[in-house]
């Protein structure tokens, strides 16, 4: 019973970790370059939750000051994650541009095929 209770108490942590790990798994395991980038996106996005959850205060509201509320969630993680999202999309955009060029230069976006081809050079 204690184990089940423990799992439920940390349910959101379990999911966040699952999301991060599966993103990372896609990046490392898959040879398709677009899929890798999707995985990279998942990995980065799920990290955001790691920042946002500690800043949440139960009963708080979004950090937009107003005389009607007194408890606000922490604004700092929000700022950090805004920056991180932007950095993430920038990376993905450059990655995709590289994929397009790789496809033009090699005719494929599968790493295995490219490495196979590279060996005869």
């Amino acid at each position, binding site marked *: 019973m204690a184990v089940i209770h423990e799992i439920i108490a*940390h*349910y959101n*942590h379990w*999911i966040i*970790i699952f999301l*991060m*790990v*599966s*993103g990372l*798994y*896609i990046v*490392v*395991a*898959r*040879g*398709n370059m*677009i*899929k890798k980038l*999707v995985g990279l*996106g*998942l990995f980065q*996005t799920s990290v*955001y939750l*790691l920042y*946002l*959850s*500690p800043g*949440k*205060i*139960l009963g708080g509201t*979004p*950090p*937009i*000051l*107003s005389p009607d509320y007194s*408890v*606000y969630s922490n*604004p*700092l*993680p*929000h700022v*950090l994650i805004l*920056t991180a*999202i*932007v*950095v993430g*999309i*920038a990376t993905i*955009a*450059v990655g*995709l*541009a590289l*994929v*397009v*060029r790789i496809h*033009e*230069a090699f*005719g*494929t*976006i599968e790493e295995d095929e490219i490495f196979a081809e590279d060996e005869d050079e």
Partner: protein
Amino acid sequence: MVLLTLLAAVTLGIIRMRNLFAVVILGGIYSFLMASVMIVLDAVDVAMTEASVGAGISTVLMLGTLYLTHAWEIRPVHRDLLPMFVAVATGAALVFGTFALPPFGAADTPVNTHVAPYYLENSIPDTLVPNVVTSVLASYRGFDTLGETTVIFTAGIAVLMLLKGRRELKPGPKRRRLKR
């Protein structure tokens, strides 16, 4: 909780699917769900950004790339040992670290008591801006935002440099496919 479960389900879908088109669309759905989770966590600015970037821009770019390349992943012929090891090791380190974090939603954690109250108390007297996220973003941590804009700038130049101009039709690539 329901949202998080849905997120996990979408992730499984992304891992399993080999039709990249579906993967990209699932990625968009993932971003929308993520944005909803962020609203629950009171991060409205972040949610708005995630929805417009994750589900909007990045999906458009991914689809554009698929259009320029091709939409099927070959069956992975990969050795599964190393990725599994990497994933399990990372997961273990995460479990090790996260489960001892201060409790969720509490107001007396270091995060919520150290620097953040300053912003909440002084945003209006210092900057006259009631949206604290904006004042922190643009003023208190304005240099981060300058850096962030620089990242965008760098990415823009990088993509332009990579993709602008005619395709060089080099004779080199042997297996170049003809135009679709």
